[in-house]
């Protein structure tokens, strides 16, 4: 979700892969087409506000630790319409990506400070402090940790006065499909919290769609 601090966004680079380790558990709610909705707290010294946010997963490649989708911010004060951005995610599977970001102005200290905000991270913390979690097997962990980085605006131009320079530390719960996240951008208010729940579009259960690229 875009924020108001004006700062040029850095292009993303795909991190190199480490060998070994297994993929995170396949979770039916972390699949293409799945929608989530909730809020992001945009705290500042002047005021405390929350923007409504909708997320839709558009692509998921667990093998390469890749996820992507769109994020729609609904009541952005400076925008006339909801602002949609496209984001790409890195899944911390210790194979393709570790808990250490290694880019986007995030140092290991920044990483640890954000990851420890998630209660589900505490059993992993000591090992992550040593090697970024490289030696951990997360294949049966009930939570999936990710970084989501907004790459571009979908429905507004870059001159909209909003920035997508930062990225999110994200924690997804495999049991109920809820997502919590913290936005990190050295130039924005710290620890802006994202809270999302998977939606079922008025149904009494979840529905699953699919596409396949050839």
């Amino acid at each position, binding site marked *: 979700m875009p924020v108001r601090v004006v700062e040029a966004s850095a292009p993303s680079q*795909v991190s190199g892969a480490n060998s070994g380790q297994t993929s995170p558990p396949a979770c039916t709610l972390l699949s*293409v*087409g799945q929608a989530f909705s909730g809020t992001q707290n945009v705290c500042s010294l002047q005021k405390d506000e929350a923007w409504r946010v909708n997320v*839709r997963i*558009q*692509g998921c490649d667990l093998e390469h630790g890749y996820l*992507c989708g*769109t994020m729609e911010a609904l009541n952005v004060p400076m925008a006339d319409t909801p602002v949609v951005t*496209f984001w*790409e995610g890195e899944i911390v599977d210790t194979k393709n990506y570790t808990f250490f970001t290694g880019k986007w102005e995030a140092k290991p200290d920044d990483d640890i400070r954000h990851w420890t905000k998630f209660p589900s991270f505490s059993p992993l913390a000591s090992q992550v402090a040593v090697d970024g979690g490289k030696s951990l097997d997360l294949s049966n962990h009930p939570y999936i940790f990710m970084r989501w980085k907004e*790459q*571009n605006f*979908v429905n507004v131009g870059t001159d909209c006065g909003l920035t997508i320079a930062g990225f999110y530390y994200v924690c997804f719960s495999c049991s109920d499909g809820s997502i919590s996240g913290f936005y990190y951008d050295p130039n924005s208010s710290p620890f802006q919290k994202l809270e999302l729940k998977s939606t*079922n*579009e*008025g*149904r*009494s*259960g*979840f*529905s*699953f*769609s*699919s*596409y*396949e*690229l*050839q």
Partner: protein
Amino acid sequence: MPASASISASSSHHRASPDLLVRLGSTDPEVKLRALREVKNQIIGNRTKKLSFLKLGAVPAVAAALDAAQSELLVQSAAALGSFACGFDAGVRAVLDAGAFPNLISLLSYPDEKVVDAGARSLRMIYQSKLAPKYDFLQVENMEFLLSLLSSENETVTGLGASIIIHSCQTDIEQNALCHAGVLKKLINLLEGSLSQRDASLESLATIMKDNPEAASKFVSESGRALSSVIDLTKDRYPRTRMLACRCLIVMRNTSPCHLQDIGIKTKLVYLLLELLDDPGQVGEEASFVFSSLIAQKEDLQKLAFKANALDKLHNQLLNYSSHPRRFQGILLVLADLCSNLESCRSRFLSLKALKLVADALTNDNADVRAAACICLRSVSRSIKDLSAGHFTNEVIVIPLVRLLHDPCTSVQVAALGAIGNIVVDFTTHKSTFVKCGGLKLLVQLSKSMDPTMRLKALWALKNLTFLADNTCKEGILSELTTPLLSSLICDPEASVQVQALALVRNLVDGCINSVEYAFAENDIILDAIGRQLQSASKAEIGIQGMYVLSNIASGNEFHKDAVHQVGL
């Protein structure tokens, strides 16, 4: 009038003289010899003349001279027949129809070296054509004869041996027979021969090792210097030799990935082939296909090619060679391979504005170019980021692609369906450009095709089109497709088609709760068909997609849940 005089002069110049035919049949050896020379000299490199003599029935008359006893007559007859066959399939057919083939073979055992050379030269011309008879290596005497050719001191004869292998070795049984007979050893020796022997050997080795790991390891173990000789030839001064050496190494690597894993040789091959692409002639043309075989389905090599600026080079080639169909096709296929896995390549491809050039290629006169352009688009459109940004759903691409669904050539239609299948995943709920230009109608039409591949690909595209579509779009899809057709496709004779039909229904009943009603149209015939398929599912994927449909329906209201219970699984 000067103009007409000039035309008549020119036409008489191209006409073969009936008098020459009479002289070819002369009993006087001198007259016959002069006639043979005259035919040979007139037809060399002249397609029109060849055709003219062919129509006149000159080939049987020329072939008849192979019965002669005089060496000079044999040499001239063989040379003329070779000329008829050179790069001209109608000529090859005429030479074969005249029964000259066994006579040319028997010239190879003639004591006079000139006759042997002429016979071998003529047979090499024939073996360059697909029409040449397949040589049966499995017969012992034929294999012995082939080995004798490859052992010959005469360069043309060894070249003929290689040509026979390149043309006739097609199965792994034949490849193994050649290996066991000791052909690899002979070919390895030829790697140190003359230019033509080296080239012929490289091409034959590639033919014998293709997809045959046993042959590839036999080649490596045959002689310590075999592999290094081929690697050395990648530095040869002649571009064609370099290209053939690269091809031989790539065939070996693709056959047995354990060979040539060294990053150095991989990088070298990438740079060598990029350099060979600059060759303005046939070598440059072939280099693109060899390059494609190097990087296809190999992400590590695609990365190396990306680092070597392959995309920029290929983009320039697209600009320069759009009027050379085969080269243009080759470049498009390399671009397709490069962009098949790596997002970095797709991103560079788009930033170079190569998409417009590929879109233009969709309307090329040549069917192979049109198919290659579709394959390239299919690769580039694997980028979810670019699909999400709607880069492919503009009219410049969609309109010509949809037109290709009418293409007279099936391979173009199938390739277009592949690209369309990706492009319709545009993540916007409108999907209007594609539907407006008649794409939906054509996909539905092709889903009724007699060709199972066509049905599969058409349904695949329809399934992707239905993904996250809004209700208006879904209604449009179902009213075009119709409920009875969809339920019959769920029960298609091909399991792969059934899977796509079920996945389509899965997407159709996804989304807002009203969508579930699509499964209940026309007396529940879709639901009934799904129930039948699930009870007799012939493969797991049918069960998986069918269960997803039922699960999506069961997430509706109480009525929907009851209906799933009624399916009675």
